[in-house]
């Protein structure tokens, strides 16, 4: 059992010495150009520690932040530090984490919950999977600190069923942490209790949405509901709840360790810290990259990603998944942060970046995402249920080159209606891929209009 910082440090030293005696082979070579432009906070331990061994995490400074918070800081001070860091939610919305915590901490309630959103529904994004599999304790530590700050003693991690290894690693991590008394009752004699349970998703994109996720944890169909009431008042089982993304929570321990001001100094004015991106598609080096906010798309795609494949021409980059948009070549010097991406008609989203070269047709890409949303629409509200299907059919007409000028007007009008009248984020953002491709690649739509 570990009940104090001193004991934690002792274990950490002991394990470090042990590690020095038996150096493990380190899987990753970090000197290549792919790595030198990166700055790793969230993925710092990826490949360096053994995710199955809590002692290895502790040897790398793990759980020091939790003990520091419990020992030296009041919940209010923890929230203050997170507010100073200006950390914003990495799950897509970009809502300031400190403010979210503060509103839950202010609600008086016997029972509150911390939920970690590990649903990672955006196809083409896999950063949360990497964190949960390679550094599960970092997620637990972030959740426990959130619990202490907000006055919650129970946490749930909602993991998608497609990630069995992540579930296995997290389960083992919870067991080990509980055994050492780092999770459980009266952690470090502070009087603070915190337990974590895993809940499995079952393959529904909409369950990444806050209220649908809660309905799913409660064992029901993942139908979103109208907000307000907000989660801070009425979340899981009607209790005040904080919902944070995996990557958001993975930033917490480093912030408590190094201070909010340190974190704020990385990145841009409005978007502090780093962001993990999943580079995929028509690009030479695929994989996860973590860079300071404000890095330009050009640096990401060409310097780190190595550009498109030989003999091909870069056409666009898609960010934000089914809720995002496509950014054309002339905007490649855009720094990636929440505001810039939004002004370009896309969103940060979870961090999937899909590079598209000149072999792809943009209308087909827009149709791909619309079809995805039509498939994943939960069917609760009409504009989304009917609208996404009708939009898919309209886009088909353009692909088959059978559209009319009127269809083009109808397409734009329908996008507006679905956006403004859908109940939840899925429907409200479903038209974005269409709108952004119309904005930058209108000629490809016009080419689908038959002459009359």
């Amino acid at each position, binding site marked *: 059992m570990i009940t104090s910082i001193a004991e934690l440090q002792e274990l950490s030293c002991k394990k470090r010495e042990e590690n020095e005696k038996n150096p493990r082979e380190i899987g990753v070579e970090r000197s290549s150009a792919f790595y030198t432009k990166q700055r790793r906070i969230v993925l710092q331990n990826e490949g360096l520690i053994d995710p199955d061994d809590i002692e290895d995490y502790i040897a790398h400074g793990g759980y020091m932040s939790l003990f520091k918070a419990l020992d030296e800081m009041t919940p209010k001070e923890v929230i203050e530090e997170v507010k100073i860091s200006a950390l914003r939610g990495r799950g897509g919305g970009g809502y300031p984490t400190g403010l979210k915590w503060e509103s839950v901490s202010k609600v008086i309630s016997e029972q509150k919950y911390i939920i970690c959103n590990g649903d990672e529904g955006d196809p083409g994004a896999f950063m949360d999977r990497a964190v949960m599999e390679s550094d599960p304790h970092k997620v637990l530590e972030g959740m426990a600190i959130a619990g202490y700050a907000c006055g919650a003693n129970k946490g749930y991690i909602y993991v998608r069923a497609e990630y069995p290894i992540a579930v296995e690693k997290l389960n083992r991590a919870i067991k080990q942490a509980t055994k050492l008394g780092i999770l459980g009752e009266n952690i470090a004699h502070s009087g603070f209790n915190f337990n974590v349970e895993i*809940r499995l*998703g079952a393959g529904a994109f909409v369950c990444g949405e806050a209220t649908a996720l809660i309905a799913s944890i409660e064992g*029901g169909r993942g139908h979103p509901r109208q907000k307000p009431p907000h989660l801070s008042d009425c979340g899981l089982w009607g209790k005040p709840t904080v919902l944070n993304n995996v990557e958001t929570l993975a930033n917490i321990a480093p912030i408590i360790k190094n201070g909010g001001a340190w974190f704020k100094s990385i990145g841009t004015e409005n978007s502090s810290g780093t962001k993990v991106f999943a580079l995929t598609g028509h690009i030479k080096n695929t994989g996860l990259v973590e860079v300071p906010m404000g890095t330009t798309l050009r640096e990401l795609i060409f310097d780190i990603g190595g550009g498109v494949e030989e003999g091909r021409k870069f056409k666009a980059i898609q960010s934000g998944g089914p809720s995002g948009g496509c950014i054309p070549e002339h905007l490649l010097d855009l720094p990636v942060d929440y505001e810039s991406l939004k002004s370009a008609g896309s969103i940060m989203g979870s961090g999937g970046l899909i590079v598209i070269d000149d072999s792809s047709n943009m209308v087909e890409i827009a149709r791909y995402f619309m079809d995805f949303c039509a498939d994943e629409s939960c069917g609760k509200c009409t504009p989304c249920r009917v609208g996404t299907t009708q939009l898919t059919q309209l886009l088909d007409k353009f692909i088959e080159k059978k559209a009319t000028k009127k269809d083009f007007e109808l397409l734009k009008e329908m996008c507006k209606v679905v956006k403004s009248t859908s109940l939840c984020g899925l429907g409200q953002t479903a038209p974005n891929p269409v709108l952004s491709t119309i904005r930058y690649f209108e000629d490809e739509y016009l080419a689908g209009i038959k002459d009359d």
Partner: protein
Amino acid sequence: MSISTDDRYNTLEKSIKKLGYDKSSLIEILHSAQETFGYLGIDTLKFIASRLKLPYSKVYGVATFYNYFRLKPKGKHNVVVCLGTACYIKGSNKILENIERRYGIKAGETTSDEALSVLTARCFGSCSLAPVIVCDDVIKPKITLESSTREIEEMIK
């Protein structure tokens, strides 16, 4: 086979018990039922409904809402084609079409000899290996039209 003699129901009963007959564990229980039976048959769903004291309609409603749950049995082997964005951009829809044509079934169906089911998924988080297919739970990276059929033949042989 009747429920009382089918051992798999004992296994299921145990996992329901472990979760404390908790109604909110329904999704967990459906997962373990699918693991035990390979799919969720009507009898299984009715059994779960009665053990959790939930209306059958609720259990059926949840089982059909989520893509991960199958209400029909799978074939002896199965191939899952990823249709996530990274794989799609790399032509996974053509790979799927090719497989469908070759085995004469659509995604979600099983061949008449029950040797092969063709399924689809929305991303396995292995996107840097796109396009991927999963043959009997093993990820096959950077697949092509040719290698996909080779892998499947290898699996069902």
